[in-house]
């Protein structure tokens, strides 16, 4: 085949803004990231509450992973969102965009106050991510299962150009139903895309119920392994495990890595955790007050 024989180039990661060594990370740094994740969760709840729509549950389950990426891993520059050598974060589970918007705002891509325009008319923060409008958003998503293929195109381009930037793709577990996800899985393995890291937010719940009831996925890790991926399974709410897994993914050569992040839908608010309803339902005024208190918001 003419497209075989691509060797990963010998490249060294140059350090840039936002890059951290994840090994030997200090307890203080972990605490800082955990506080940031709580802040993002509060944003998620307020964004979805103000418009009484959106998907808080899956945003909160992915929140620790997204926090780790945006506040410790990704080399991105809010002053120059289209910087060609930036890392790419592809949000494949588009419905969880509140967590992405919250991270981008806190990372300086647009004002935090703009978060409260989410899903409103004339907003840059669409109900599902729009490409080219929202600073820092790298792809359009909403119809499930397209993000990993899009990431393959990005990763192949980086390799062709012998660039060190990396691609991170966050998928939902509902997206594991979609045939195209597995098309992309086959393709990533064919091209040995070790500059691509996929993360599955394995919260076990999709729109209408438990994933194992709607369309069983287990043994999910074995499936990915058999598709030619390096598979890491972690607690997706343990900041140290998340950072460690991403570090391992960086070090792993010759294969793409998928991190199955075991998470809890609605994580961080006791009455939302593991409740199917909060996939696509916002909180009431009273629920919001209680939730924010649980997440450490100090009332004004």
């Amino acid at each position, binding site marked *: 085949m*003419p*497209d075989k024989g691509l060797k990963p180039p010998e490249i060294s990661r140059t350090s840039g803004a936002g890059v951290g060594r994840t090994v030997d990370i200090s307890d203080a740094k972990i605490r800082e990231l955990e506080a940031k994740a709580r802040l993002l969760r509060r944003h998620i709840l307020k964004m979805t509450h103000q418009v009484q729509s959106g998907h808080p549950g899956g945003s909160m389950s992915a929140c620790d992973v997204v926090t780790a990426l945006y506040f410790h891993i990704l080399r991105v520059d809010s002053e120059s969102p289209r910087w060609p050598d930036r890392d790419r974060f592809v949000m494949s589970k588009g419905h969880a965009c509140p967590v992405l918007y919250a991270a981008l705002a806190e990372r300086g891509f647009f004002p935090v106050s703009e978060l409260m325009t989410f899903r409103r008319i004339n907003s840059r923060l669409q109900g599902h991510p729009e*490409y080219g409008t929202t600073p820092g958003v790298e792809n359009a998503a909403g119809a499930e299962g*397209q993000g990993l293929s899009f990431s393959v195109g990005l990763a192949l*381009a980086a390799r062709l150009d012998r660039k060190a930037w990396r691609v991170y793709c966050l998928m939902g577990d509902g997206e594991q139903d979609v045939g*195209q996800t597995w*098309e992309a899985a086959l393709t990533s393995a064919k091209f040995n895309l070790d500059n691509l890291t996929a993360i599955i937010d394995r919260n076990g719940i999709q729109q209408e119920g438990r994933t194992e009831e709607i369309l069983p996925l287990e043994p999910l890790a074995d499936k990915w392994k058999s598709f030619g991926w390096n598979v890491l399974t972690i607690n997706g709410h343990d900041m140290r495990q998340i950072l460690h897994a991403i570090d391992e993914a960086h070090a792993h050569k010759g294969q793409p890595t998928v991190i199955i992040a075991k998470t809890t839908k609605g994580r961080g608010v006791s009455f939302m955790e593991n409740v199917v309803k909060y996939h696509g339902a916002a909180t009431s005024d009273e629920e919001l007050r209680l939730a924010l208190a649980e997440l450490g918001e100090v009332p004004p």
Partner: protein
Amino acid sequence: MTSVAPIPWKMESQRSYFAKALIELGEKNPNVVVVGGDTTESIKTMDFGKKFPDRLFNVGITEQNMISIAAGFAAAGKIAFASTYAVFGVAHTYNVIRQNVAYTKLPIKLFCSHAGLTTGPDGATHQLNEDIALMRGLPNMTVLVPADGPQTAKAVHAAVDWPGPVYCRFSRTNFPTVTSVEDPFEIGPAYVMRDGSDITLAACGIMVSRCLQAAEELEAEGVSARVINVSTIKPLDTASLLRAARETGGFVSAEEHTVVHGLGSAIAAVVAQEHPVPMEFVGVQDVFGESGEAFELMEKYGLTAAKVVEAAMRVVERKGR
């Protein structure tokens, strides 16, 4: 006016012109990449791959994946062609094109062969007669239907500099080469290939040749027919078509595609709003095709010069009322 190639027209492969143009591009520009889906040999993107083995990506029978990968390439600044048979590349992938390409405006170049009835013996499953309808319905999408091989090659080059996504359809079957190599080709303009004052025959793809033949026959009947090659269906050259409506007072559209939401519909919408004139639609009449040789099918499904002439005579008669 552009010129018409001398008769007898050479029968030439659009795929060969496509493949040659891709290689020319690849030589000029190291950023050109091609994504294919287990059809690289028949669609001849393999020729590009032989020359540039690290820039052809055969992703197997995963057309949705293929489109998204091309979009990812484009997002990283590559000039990305995605190419397979129309039925797989357009019909199987509609929502991927919608979300990852049209909505994003990422300038991928989706060049699909085996469009239309002339796909032939493979039958209805492979004869996509609805691709123009599907693609022109998408915001931000540009739709090209080259009339022959030379126009296919020119479409490849024109697509490179076009700022948004482009869909270009061509055929498995050799088409008569009706245009001249010297003629210009840009995305946008419709090309008047023959002047006339009594009626306009507006066509795309292989039906341009049929309309040129029809115009000859109509001349013998004393009807002066203008022939317009609408190689860009979207954005439509409304100025040229409205001028034709005003100057000739009647239209026949002709396309190797369903009459539902194709070229004829696009023209009718413009004409009805701005300058209503009698119009007839030659094309596949909202039915599926079947197995057969390309030109047998065109005969059976009414895609012939004779059908264009009949339609034109009806329009001329209605004009007189």
